[in-house]
């Protein structure tokens, strides 16, 4: 049966068909749906881990114990899981082990545009890269087989357009793969220097064996169209190139992007007059070709920035212009993402902006607190950095600066890696104020449960991490829970907590507006009592805008949360009569 599947769902399907036993991940766009889809298969144990490092370690443990295991993340998540990944490369596996990483060329939903292919060479782990959903499924299955055959973890690399495109996939039955026997093997599984020295030799030999495989494996495909132009490419870039060039070029489509086949590439290039390497982001394939003496055109003709298009390739390779199109003769306003109407974060940032505080920010929907008119967030670096970076700021600038400084971090992000920063603050005598934005869910990635929600990935009830007790247990003596929509009280709480010479935590508690069950009664509207002070406009609510001189609330967008009513000094905003 053929089905239209998202690339991510196809990876999940591939893992399922390969008989995967354990999948542990932390959500991250564009990888999230892989694990969500896996969780729908009853035969597989699936979980959201507190962060990517923990997730990878759960998968590694499962593989060492003899099961097939996978951990999925976005490119920056791979940075978090890198530590165990580099060492399990030495240990190898028992049951097959796959790390699936989704890069985000074009930064649709990311803080950087790193190219995860570098990790494959650095960690000496083979990497496969599918180009559409059918390959996502197929390559995932091959990754498990390769892992067991070569006693190595295997990377599966996706990119946003592969993860989030749907195409047809042929569904097959789940393979019956029995969990392998576990035997104590200290020389293999305990990576202390004496053992690691010996295992490094094994790893180098393994890479040589994989290079030999790369020369002959059917996953690397030569498409000889008798053309003079040759294209070396992989992943989604192949699809763009194929659409742009059709049969006007020969293609070497690399399904395995590490290690690379020296002879296959040399032989392919020798038959062409001119060879282009087409790859988004960094010149990984290009540099390899050049290192083995194959002359290619790569980043001289293509950018290292963002996503490619077929038109870009047709222009660079064939000199063909894109089709004529209508031009827009005026500058039109951009539409950047915004916090939703009735988003709980809006109340928090309104207060922080009003108080003129320096805001050490983090990764989540609330990064949008940096966008006008709230424009409250000062820094965003990575998961957890809001807490630890604020300690660094306070240490260099002193107490007065610290009394105008807060960290803001979501509930899930706090558990991911904010808690370690908070321990650092307590341990090293910081006096920072950390605001945990507790919206009862992992929001940005599309509503995943986490240790603070009291539910597992399958929605089963479980123990709930109590943020108040957690903060208290590491030594925070001042923990306050406040509702960010009760603007007056929230402001008073923030003012009091930043003034302290001791560390404090404020838990800003109100659920995400998009959660099922979050309903506000009625709609807000501006009454005749409005004095046009425009204070409500400072909320940056998408439902409130200026029509000429008058403020207006768009009832199709208003959710009736009433935050604007709490902000209005003249009580001029009313709830619509039912």
């Amino acid at each position, binding site marked *: 049966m053929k089905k239209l599947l998202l690339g991510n769902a196809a990876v999940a399907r591939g893992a399922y068909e390969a008989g995967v036993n354990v999948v542990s991940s932390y959500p991250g766009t564009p990888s999230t749906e892989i694990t969500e889809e896996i969780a729908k298969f009853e035969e597989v144990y699936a979980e959201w881990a507190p962060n990517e490092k923990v997730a990878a370690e759960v998968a590694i443990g499962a593989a060492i114990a003899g099961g097939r295991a996978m951990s999925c993340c976005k490119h920056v998540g791979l940075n978090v899981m890198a530590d165990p990944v580099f060492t399990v490369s030495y240990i190898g596996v028992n049951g097959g082990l796959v790390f699936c990483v989704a890069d985000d060329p074009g930064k649709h939903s990311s803080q950087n545009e790193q190219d995860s292919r570098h990790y494959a060479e650095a960690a000496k782990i083979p990497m496969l890269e599918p180009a559409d959903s059918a390959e996502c499924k197929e390559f995932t299955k091959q990754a498990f087989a390769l892992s067991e055959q070569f006693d190595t973890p295997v990377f599966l690399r996706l990119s946003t357009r592969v993860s989030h495109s749907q195409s047809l996939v042929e569904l097959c039955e789940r393979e019956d793969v029995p969990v392998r026997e576990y035997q104590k093997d200290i020389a293999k599984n305990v990576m202390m220097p004496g053992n690691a020295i010996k295992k490094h030799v094994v790893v180098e030999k393994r890479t040589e064996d994989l290079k030999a495989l790369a020369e002959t494996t059917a996953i690397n495909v030569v498409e000889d169209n008798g053309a003079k132009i040759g294209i070396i490419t992989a992943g*989604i870039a192949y699809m763009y190139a194929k659409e742009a060039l059709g049969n006007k070029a020969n293609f070497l489509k690399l399904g395995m992007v590490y290690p690379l086949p020296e002879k296959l590439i040399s032989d392919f290039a020798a038959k062409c007059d001119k060879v282009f390497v087409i790859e988004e982001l960094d010149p990984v394939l290009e540099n390899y070709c050049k290192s083995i003496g194959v002359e290619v055109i790569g980043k001289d003709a293509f950018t290292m920035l963002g996503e490619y298009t077929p038109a870009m390739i047709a222009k660079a390779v064939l000199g063909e212009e894109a089709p004529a199109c209508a031009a827009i003769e005026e500058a039109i306003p951009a539409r950047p993402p915004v916090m939703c109407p009735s988003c709980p974060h809006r109340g928090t940032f309104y207060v922080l902006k009003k108080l003129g505080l320096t805001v050490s920010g983090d990764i989540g929907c609330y990064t949008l607190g940096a966008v006008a008119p709230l424009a409250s967030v000062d820094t965003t670096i990575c998961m957890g950095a809001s807490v630890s970076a604020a300690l660094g700021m306070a240490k260099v600038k002193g107490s007065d600066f610290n009394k105008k400084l807060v960290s803001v971090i979501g509930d899930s992000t706090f558990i991911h890696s904010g808690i370690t920063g908070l321990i650092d603050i307590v341990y090293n005598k910081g006096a920072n104020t950390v605001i945990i934005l507790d919206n009862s869910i992992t929001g940005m990635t599309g509503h995943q449960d986490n240790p603070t929600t009291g539910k597992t990935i399958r929605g089963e009830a479980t123990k709930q991490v109590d943020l108040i007790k957690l903060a208290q247990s590491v030594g925070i003596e001042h923990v306050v829970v406040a509702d960010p929509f009760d603007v007056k009280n929230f402001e008073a709480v923030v003012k009091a907590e930043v003034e302290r010479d001791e560390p404090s935590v404020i838990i800003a508690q109100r659920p995400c507006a998009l959660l099922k069950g979050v309903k506000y009664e009625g709609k807000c509207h501006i009454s005749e009592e409005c004095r046009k002070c425009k204070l409500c406009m400072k909320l940056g609510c998408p439902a409130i805008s200026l029509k000429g001189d008058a403020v207006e609330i768009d009832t199709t967008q208003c959710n009736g949360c009433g935050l604007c009513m709490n902000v209005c000094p003249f009580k001029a905003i009313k709830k619509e009569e039912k």
Partner: protein
Amino acid sequence: MTDTKKIMIVGVGGQGTLLASRILGNTVINEGYDVKLSEVHGMSQRGGSVVTYVKYSQKVYSPIIGKGEADIILAFELLEAYRALPYLKKGGKIIVNTQQINPMPVITGAADYPVEIETKIAASADLIAVDALSLAKEAGNIKAVNVVLIGMLAKSSEIEKESWLQTIKTTVPPKFLEVNLKAFELGYNH
């Protein structure tokens, strides 16, 4: 069909463009085509501009659509229709919901919402404008804007009406089916 059919669905995050593209995608596979859909997830979904590409043919390679290539643009919002206009091929059709949603630069006063967008679009394209929000209200739920627009797209397509209805029945949750079928008819018969 040798030429690939290219349809772009544009709108504002939260308007339900994803459901529309999935209805379209599943309708065309039932017709036996190869199909690719490219979606946007994550941060852009939070009230930002969202673009979905749907392409179908005997064999589709790239999931994205370039400037000057789209046969049809289905726009959920007026400014987003205007923004997407360069992607329409010469002589292409653009179906536009005339609803206006102010982007943040307009709300903050940093920019103005462009005026007379419909006239400007009609100068270079085959424009079909519709107040889909009112039709969705008439159907019983303002969130059914997406299915009203799917109804309009269905009317412009070579695919049988029954085939669209079949997909809607299998894609939409049962409790919203009645509203959505009504929304589809209102769009189809507009």
